[in-house]
């Protein structure tokens, strides 16, 4: 479980990596929204070309980007099968009992696959090219205006950072405790719901005890390093909008017009 990777950041230094995280987050949201407007296969081709281009510039191995698809492969297959079998239409290609496959169904299923795949690929690029801490920085910056209506944007970002930092540590710890309790005869995978919930006690109590201890020590360590919230704080990698960011935004705009154009094909 130590192999667990959160946000699977691929640490190299490409132009995409260097983009301001705010630009990348907003860009990704924009991209996903635009994807929903596509109603023609040409639109998917435009989006695919766009993704391929960004991937090439980011120098992230395409295999890594495709790996993000593994998580949704079952959803993908399941959803497309449902669409395939249960979409009604005029052009029946194949019928057996209550199952019929129509041309519309095929088109719809393929479109849905395209949309989902492109969506996942796009967000994978965001997480692969942006370190979790830059990502949280970006979110913090984007949330900053909300500070004036009482949203503690800095605290939220700090909590996200610490959570990201400790997920692998706690996962390791959990694995260790599981093994130790198993060696004492604890079983976690059989019995009814209640006995299963009960069997988690030997796992969860030590995990919580340790998590609280860690939290306490971490808080002391942070205080020792002069942490006092966002009072007078600076950032090593302060995000400033650079020329490349403006350029990226222009490309996004061009992408939007290209997609929009395909609607009128």
């Amino acid at each position: 479980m130590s192999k667990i990777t959160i946000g699977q950041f691929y640490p190299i230094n490409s132009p995409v990596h260097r983009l301001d995280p705010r630009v990348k987050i907003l860009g990704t949201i924009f991209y996903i929204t635009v994807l929903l407007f596509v109603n023609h296969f040409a639109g998917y081709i435009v989006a695919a070309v766009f993704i391929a281009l960004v991937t090439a510039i980011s120098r992230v191995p395409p295999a890594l980007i495709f790996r993000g698809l593994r998580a949704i492969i079952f959803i993908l297959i399941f959803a497309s099968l449902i669409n395939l079998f249960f979409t009604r239409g005029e052009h029946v290609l194949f019928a057996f009992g209550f199952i019929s496959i129509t041309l519309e169904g095929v088109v719809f299923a393929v479109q849905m696959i395209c949309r989902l795949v492109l969506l996942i690929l796009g967000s994978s690029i965001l997480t692969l090219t942006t370190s979790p801490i830059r990502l949280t920085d970006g979110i913090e910056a984007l949330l900053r205006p909300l500070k004036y209506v009482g949203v503690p944007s800095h605290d939220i970002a700090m909590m996200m950072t610490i959570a990201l930092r400790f997920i692998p540590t706690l996962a390791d710890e959990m694995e260790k405790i599981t093994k130790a309790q198993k060696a004492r005869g604890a079983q976690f995978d059989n019995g009814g719901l209640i006995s299963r919930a009960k069997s988690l006690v030997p796992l969860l109590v030590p995990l919580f005890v340790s998590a609280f201890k860690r939290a306490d020590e971490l808080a002391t360590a942070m205080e020792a390093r002069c942490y006092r919230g966002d009072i007078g704080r600076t950032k090593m990698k302060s995000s400033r909008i650079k020329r490349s960011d403006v350029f990226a935004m222009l490309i996004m705009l061009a992408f939007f017009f290209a997609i929009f154009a395909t609607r009128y094909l």
Partner: protein
Amino acid sequence: MIKSENLNFEYAAFGEGERPAKALRDINLRINEGEFVAILGHNGSGKSTLARHFNALLAPTGGTFRVRGLDTRDSANTWEIRQTAGMVFQNPDNQIIATIVEEDIAFGPENLGVPPDEIRRRVDEALAAVKMTAYADFPPHNLSGGQKQRVAIAGVLAMRPACIVLDEPSAMLDPSGRREVMETITRLSRESGITVILITHFMEEAARADRVIVMDAGQIVMDDAPRKIFSRVDEMNALGLGVPQITELAFELKKRGLDVRGDVLTIAEFMSEFSRILRVSSEFGVHSSEISPISSELAQAGEESHCEEGLSGRPPQENAPEKQTPGGQAPVLELKGVSHTYSPGSVFEKSALRDINLAINEGEIVAIIGHTGSGKSTLIQHFNALLRPTSGEILTRGEPLLSAAASKKRKRRKKMPPSEANPTNQAYAHVGLVFQYPEHQLFEVTVYKDVAFGPTRMGLSDVDSRTVAALESVGLGPEFYEKSPFELSGGEKRRAAIAGVLAMTPDVLVLDEPAAGLDPRGRREIFAQIKKMHEESGITVVIVSHSMDDAAALAERIIVMNEGEIVADGTPSEIFTRGDFLTEIGLDVPQISDLGLPAGIFTVDAAADYIAKRAAESGETCGNSHSSSATKGEGL
């Protein structure tokens, strides 16, 4: 730099009826700019409490504590003090905040509001100072313990402190990690002139400081140069601390009437000291003044008797010797051609064990040593079927570990409670596995219930008598039964957790680093307990350790692992002849074995006896008395 006057500190009482705990009493301390000070003391002596005063994490409840003239009680000074005196803690995992190394190092300066360009410069400098530049982009959880501690040190350095306080920075590290951290600390102290305050349990580490402060019961009991402190061997032993092994050896020699300085601190010092004595006493004037291993000098004094001992130069066997237990029984645990590969077929594929052949006999006490990642943890998890071999088989008393239990299960399936019918459970009960930091698995309301958890889950009979016996064998009496495991002290918690495994009355007890993180006294206690248990019940014990000292103190047989293979298997004396090889694979050898003494000598007593005997013999043959050697010795 640091000045405290009549410093007192008490922790506030939690419940009613509890009195505030007095942790520090009348501490008067002055530490100058640029000093390297080590603070020693067993757990509960107040040294960590004192450490927390250096950067105003705690403020005195009586007296004053000043850092560069700033009073720590005045909260207006807090941030300046924390910037002046940075702090590194024991657990490397619980002080790294960010998910990327360089961003973590930037955390301190960011908090101080340093401009971004300046932070970048400081981060690069700090990375270079701890030699971690190549790891700037790494996520911390992919680093080793030693590397994580160096990142933590860099994180403090980036704040440009005048003083760095390290609270047992190496307690949770393996020997190579400990070396990395100590090298870093020593270099910093020497090259950057920063004031270093090192709290430690390791006497060898303290010996590197300019000054050692010893604490006991909240007071400073000694404060002097390490040479002076460690020459007070009896006092240090009485405090439960001990001295570096080499110092102890010199002390023992002195006790045996040899004219040796009692304050040697390093192996080099010991060598020059000793060649002086030996050369003068036996007039081996032909030797150069260069430091050479003692054995080459001693060899001439007592070559024949070496051969009689019949041990010197005999290499340990490469493979497990096919030993038979006296009764001719099959071994209690036997591994044949066991290999283990993690996540086979995936990108993470990693071969952890390769073709392990190993037999552990009834009643043996065996130590398995190897550095982190050598495969020893993977190996012991095979012993009780937590992990299954990718290939090969595991036998217990001639029967396969799992199928023996499984066939019983088929026969009696319906009569047995589900947990006992489970073959893996039988393997768990056969081989009790105590993990590293076992106290982390305590969860029940009372100590008794926690210890009874194992036997109850296993569906064993006589849960009560097993529980009581287990608690007794770790030295926890009835007064502990109804206590919450969380209110015990560190050592007691560990013993309770070991009892939790013992209660399943295993045939083999496997302990992974049973002394990890304990202070010297706790270490000795736990080893004495294990030894006693072994002697009384004859249980087969397997101990996993980084430390050769532990292995030497306890085991009759040592198995050395490296890169997933068994590279040596033999008696301690056989293993310790290969000091260079052991150091090469990242293990910590006892200082004694660096002296180049003949094989079979690896404890202070044995070494002292041997050297004293040789010196006496060589003295006699040449007709020189010790008194004359002493006077001549002064002249050299």
